C-alpha cells in the first residue's frame, strides 16, 4: 500500500517530466542538426529516405545538439568502460572536482558558522560585517575566479586549493545567513527562561541557540554544497586546468566535442544531485535524533 502510493505520488510525476524533456530533446536535436546534415547529403550527392535522414541527424560525431542516447552512450563509455586512471574517465574528472568541492564546502560551512556566531554575539560585527558579506556575493564570480587562480598561482599555490577557495567563497554566504537566522530563532520565552536560570552566554549558546539553529544550518548547507560544486567547476574553467569537469567542458568547447560537453554536464548534475541528497539525508538523521516529529 505504502509502496504503491510512493510510486503514484512521487515517481510517476517525475517520470512524466523526464519523458517530456526527452521527447523535446529529440525533436530539438533533429531540427538543430538537420541543416548540417542536409548540407552533408548535398555535397555527397546522397538522397536519403526521411527515416534514414532522421537517423543520420542523431548520429553525427560533432552535432550542434547531441541526441540523448549519444550523450548517454558517451557517459556510459567514459564511466563504466574507461579505466579510472584514463584522462577520458569522467569518474576521474568528477573526483578531481568533487575533492575541491568538498574541501571548499567544509571550509565554507565552518567559516559561515563562525561568522554567524560572531554576528549574533558581537553587535559591532553585526553592523560592520553584514553589508560586506552581502556585497561579497554581488561580485561576479566568473570575473573573480581567474584572478584568484592567477594570484594564488603566482605564489605557487595551484591545484586544489585555489578551486576550493572559490567554493568557499560561494558557500560561506548561505551558511552564514541561514545560521544567523537560526541562532536568532529562539523565542523570547526560551531566552527569558535562560535568564531566570542566570545562564551564561556560553550556556545559552550551547543549550539553546545552537540546537535551535540546526534545521536552518542543514537547509543552508544544501544550498552551499551545490554552490561549492559550481565554484569548483568555475575554478577549473578559465585556467586551462588539466583535470576536472570544468576542464572537460572547456576542452569540449575548444574542439566542438559537444557530446563530451553534454556528458560532463550530466555528470556534474548527477554529482550535484547526489551531494544535495546526502546533505538532506544527514539532516534528516540529525533531525530525528533531536526528537523531530516524523514527517
Amino acid at each position, binding site marked *: 500500500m505504502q509502496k504503491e502510493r510512493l510510486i503514484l505520488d512521487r515517481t510517476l510525476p517525475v517520470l512524466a517530466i523526464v519523458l517530456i524533456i526527452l521527447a523535446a530533446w529529440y525533436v530539438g536535436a533533429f531540427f538543430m542538426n538537420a541543416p548540417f546534415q542536409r548540407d552533408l547529403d548535398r555535397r555527397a550527392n546522397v538522397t536519403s529516405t526521411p527515416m534514414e535522414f532522421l537517423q543520420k541527424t542523431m548520429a553525427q560525431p560533432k552535432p550542434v545538439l547531441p541526441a540523448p542516447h549519444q550523450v548517454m552512450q558517451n557517459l556510459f563509455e567514459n564511466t563504466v568502460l574507461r579505466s579510472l586512471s584514463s584522462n577520458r574517465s569522467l569518474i576521474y574528472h568528477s573526483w578531481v572536482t568533487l575533492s575541491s568541492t568538498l574541501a571548499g564546502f567544509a571550509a565554507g560551512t565552518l567559516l559561515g558558522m563562525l561568522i554567524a556566531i560572531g554576528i549574533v554575539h558581537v553587535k559591532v560585527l553585526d553592523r560592520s560585517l553584514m553589508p560586506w558579506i552581502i556585497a561579497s556575493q554581488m561580485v561576479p564570480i566568473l570575473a573573480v575566479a581567474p584572478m584568484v587562480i592567477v594570484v594564488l598561482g603566482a605564489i605557487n599555490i595551484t591545484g586544489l586549493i585555489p578551486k576550493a577557495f572559490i567554493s568557499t567563497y560561494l558557500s560561506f554566504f548561505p551558511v552564514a545567513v541561514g545560521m544567523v537566522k537560526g541562532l536568532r530563532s529562539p*523565542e523570547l*520565552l*526560551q531566552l*527569558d*527562561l*535562560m*535568564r*531566570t*536560570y*542566570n*545562564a551564561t552566554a556560553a*550556556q545559552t549558546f550551547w*543549550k*539553546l541557540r545552537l*540546537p*535551535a539553529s*540546526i534545521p536552518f544550518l542543514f537547509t543552508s548547507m544544501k544550498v552551499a554544497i551545490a554552490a561549492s560544486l559550481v565554484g569548483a567547476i568555475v575554478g577549473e574553467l578559465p585556467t586551462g586546468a588539466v583535470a576536472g569537469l570544468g576542464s572537460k567542458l572547456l576542452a569540449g568547447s575548444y574542439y566542438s566535442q559537444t557530446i563530451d560537453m553534454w556528458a560532463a554536464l550530466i555528470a556534474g548534475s548527477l554529482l550535484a544531485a547526489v551531494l544535495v541528497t546526502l546533505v538532506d539525508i544527514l539532516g534528516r538523521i540529525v533531525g530525528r535524533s*533531536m*526528537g*523531530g*516529529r516524523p514527517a
Partner: protein
Amino acid sequence: MNENSVPVVSARKLGLTFETNDGPVHALSNVDLEVKRGDFVSFIGPSGCGKTTFLRVIADLERATAGEITVNGMTPEDARKSRSYGYVFQAPALYPWRTIEKNIALPLEIMGHSKAERQARIARTLDLVNLSGFGKKYPWQLSGGMQQRASIARALAFDADLLLMDEPFGALDEIVRDHLNEQLLKLWARTQKTICFVTHSIPEAVYLSTRIVVMSPRPGRVTDIIESTLPRERPLDIRETPEFLAIAHRVREGLRAGHSYEE
C-alpha cells in the same frame, strides 16, 4: 522563626514606566505589597494592568523605574543570580529537541548538578506533577496540559522557594484547568513554597489563593488586596459555598471599581 519574618517579596511605591514612541506608558505605579513566606498570592486584573509586568520585575526580567523592591531581602538581580525563584511562563517553552526529562534537567545542568543528583531530582519532580513514565517523551508527544505540567516540574527541579507563575493555565480548556488547579494546590501543600500567580480568571484566583491582589490599568496599580478566609484544604466543590462566592463577589467589585470605561 526569624527567617520566616523576612517577606519573600516586598515592594514599596514601585513604579515602572516604558518609554515608547507614543510617549511614556505607566505599566506600574505606586505598588505597595508584601508577600509572606508560604503565601499563595494571585494577581488579577484586565490586560494592561501590569500584573505580568510586576511578576517580571520580581524575576528581574524588567527593571522598576521608581520605588523599591526586595526579593528574599535582596535586589531582584541578586535574587535571580542566586536562583531564588522558578518561573512558569504562559506557554510551556519546552525545548523541542529535548525529552521531558532533559527539559527538566536543563536548569540542573546550568546550575552544575551532578548526573546522579539530576536523575534523582527529575524522578522526584516528575512524580510531583504526575508525569512519571513520560520522561522519555518529546514535548510534541504530550498534550498541552501535560506540557505545562512538565514546565512546572522544570521550575520545581532546583528547589527554589518561590514559584512565579504567569497565567500558566490560560491557554488550557476549563476541565483541564480545574484539574491542574487542584493538583497545584496539592503541590503547594506538599512543597510549602511561596507562589505568585498571575491570572485573569476570578474563580481560579479565589480557589487557589490565600491573598488576591486586584489590579487595574492606566496606570497599572493595586486597587484591593483581599485576604482569603477559605481553609487551606480546598476540594473543588468549595467553589459553590457562600464564602467562596462572597470573595469572588468582592474581587469582581474591585475589578469593576478599578476599570475605566473611557474607551
